[in-house]
């Protein structure tokens, strides 16, 4: 192993460098100089995002514990973009006087969790996968408990931490049985050792499946989601619902495709049932919500059900549609969360009925939220439509017609609740609509990037083509 080969870990090393620089900046500044930390963090992260797009070789390091391929690098870039948008959107909230005292901790912990996700998605063995997963969740729980003023925030943190501890326990039990029956923790060796339907190995896979289902919040393992999303600060809610979920769904898919490829019929059956449950229950509960964050939480549960449609096909097309959907979903969900976070940072309001008559007072924000909800619902001109459409075709290619039919029905149900806030903003009258306010430039920039991404990616077919060329099937 030479020094140059360490450059394969460029994404991780740069992020680690950013963390260390922020630590030094935190130590080296006094209270009056703390205001430079936010811009410093955002600039460092923007540089890291840009450098991430430079072409990267494929290869593996440390005896196969760390692998990087084109699709993994693409996924890391997608996550980087999402985090950059979140950083811009959370600027106003983070620089409020009550949060200012822990700005640098916020950035350090957030970047560490992203680093964990990077190691998780490029893991070549279960140990690195597990460590990455834990780095991505344990500090995140502390971020969910960030607001000291809000009672719900601490509650969200402890709830996230305890449910993720249970799910990692279940996951690890599965991994231990896989280790016991195959004698290895490396993905490549395990997939060679698994040759037939050994009941213990199938059971181990079910344990693994349930553990991951917790992390991606699939029904019936979703009970923690709504409360955590409601209690956590908006920035962390959007991080949990797009970045964490996207990374976990990606590595889940990779492991199912490589390690458990022999058991494909088993996990396809399980996944059909879980996908139907997840979409239906997510949609039905979203109908009844009035709190915007809870509403988006259930909507994100339903969206996770749609992601399963791509995984279930087990083909290269399926993988490409999942990655593409995650990209589209990051942009659309962040647009929605961006508007919600701007509204809550400026006015402190966060329920759907507060939106009544908002078009009259804040037309631009209303239009942005409308576009975002259209994209989440999958209405044609915006990218969300293409994301969902590709997922459906991937599943239909492999003859999952009933599943696709149910997914279509669910899309129609979801139209109703995605249009509820739109109706509130444009049609409902209100005595006291949210007064006009002027948004700061940085939040505007964050919102603009996500909206432009959402609109442009739908029409830029090279994006999908490139992703497809990197993907692999079973």
């Amino acid at each position, binding site marked *: 192993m030479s020094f140059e080969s360490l450059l394969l870990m460029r994404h991780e090393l740069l992020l680690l460098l950013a963390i260390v620089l922020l630590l030094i900046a935190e130590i080296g500044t006094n209270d009056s100089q703390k205001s430079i930390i936010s811009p410093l963090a955002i600039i460092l992260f923007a540089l890291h995002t840009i450098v991430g797009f430079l072409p990267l070789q494929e290869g593996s390091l440390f005896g196969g514990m760390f692998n990087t391929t084109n699709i993994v690098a693409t996924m890391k870039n997608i996550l980087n973009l999402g985090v950059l948008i979140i950083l811009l959107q959370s600027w106003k909230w983070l620089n409020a006087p009550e949060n200012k005292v822990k700005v640098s901790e916020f950035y350090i912990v957030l970047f560490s969790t992203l680093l964990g996700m990077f190691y998780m998605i490029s893991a070549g063995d*279960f*140990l690195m996968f*597990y*460590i990455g997963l*834990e780095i991505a969740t*344990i*500090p995140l*729980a*502390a971020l969910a*408990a960030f607001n*000291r003023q809000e*009672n*719900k925030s*601490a*509650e969200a*943190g*402890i*709830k996230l*931490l*305890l*449910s993720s*501890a*249970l799910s*990692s*326990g*279940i996951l*690890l*039990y599965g*991994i*231990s*049985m896989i*280790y*016991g029956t195959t*004698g*290895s*923790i490396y993905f490549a060796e395990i997939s060679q050792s698994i040759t037939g339907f050994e009941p213990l190995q199938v059971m181990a896979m079910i344990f693994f499946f349930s553990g991951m289902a917790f992390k991606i919040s699939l029904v019936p393992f979703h*009970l*923690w989601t709504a*409360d955590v999303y409601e209690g956590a600060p908006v920035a962390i809610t959007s991080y949990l619902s797009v970045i964490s979920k996207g990374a976990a769904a990606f590595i889940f898919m990779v492991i199912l495709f490589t390690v458990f490829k022999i058991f494909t019929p088993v996990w396809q059956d399980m996944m059909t049932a879980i996908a139907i449950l997840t979409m239906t229950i997510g949609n039905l509960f979203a109908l009844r919500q009035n709190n915007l964050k809870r509403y988006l939480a259930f909507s994100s549960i339903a969206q996770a059900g749609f992601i399963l449609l791509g995984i279930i096909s087990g083909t290269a097309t399926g993988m490409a549609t999942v990655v593409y959907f995650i990209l589209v979903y990051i942009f659309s969900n962040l647009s929605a969360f961006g508007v919600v976070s701007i509204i809550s940072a400026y006015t402190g309001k966060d329920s759907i009925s507060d939106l009544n008559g908002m078009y009259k007072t804040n037309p631009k924000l209303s239009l942005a939220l409308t576009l975002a909800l259209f994209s989440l619902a999958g209405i044609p001109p915006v990218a969300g439509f293409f994301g969902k459409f590709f997922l459906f075709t991937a599943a239909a290619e492999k003859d999952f017609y009933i599943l696709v039919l149910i997914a279509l029905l669910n899309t129609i149900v979801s139209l109703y609740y995605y249009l509820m806030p739109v109706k509130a903003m444009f049609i409902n009258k209100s005595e006291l609509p949210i007064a006009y306010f002027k948004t700061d430039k940085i939040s505007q920039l964050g919102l603009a990037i996500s909206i432009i991404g959402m609109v442009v990616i739908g029409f830029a077919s090279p994006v999908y083509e490139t992703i497809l060329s990197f993907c692999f099937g079973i």
Partner: protein
Amino acid sequence: MIEGIDITHILIVSTCMFFIGVYGFLVRRNLITILMATELILNAVSINFVVLNKFLYPNVLQGYMFSVFIIAIAAAEAAVAIAIIINVYRRYRTINVENVHEMKY
């Protein structure tokens, strides 16, 4: 390896411990006792790794290593959990789940 003990006996012990932990997680209403139940679960898994490594694959250290890392991660998890639990306590003056606002599993 222990003479005269079959590996399945130890695995049965650790599996029982695992499910005792799950039972505790579902039944307990106090945040710290829930945390203790998760420690039981992690401990059971770590026994699994050690035993499987010792009995079946004694020439590679992967299982032992996994256990070491599980222990380290459990420590980090407990530290963060307790920091948040103390925070919850200062807000609500209690750490029982019923009294903590709509906190249901």
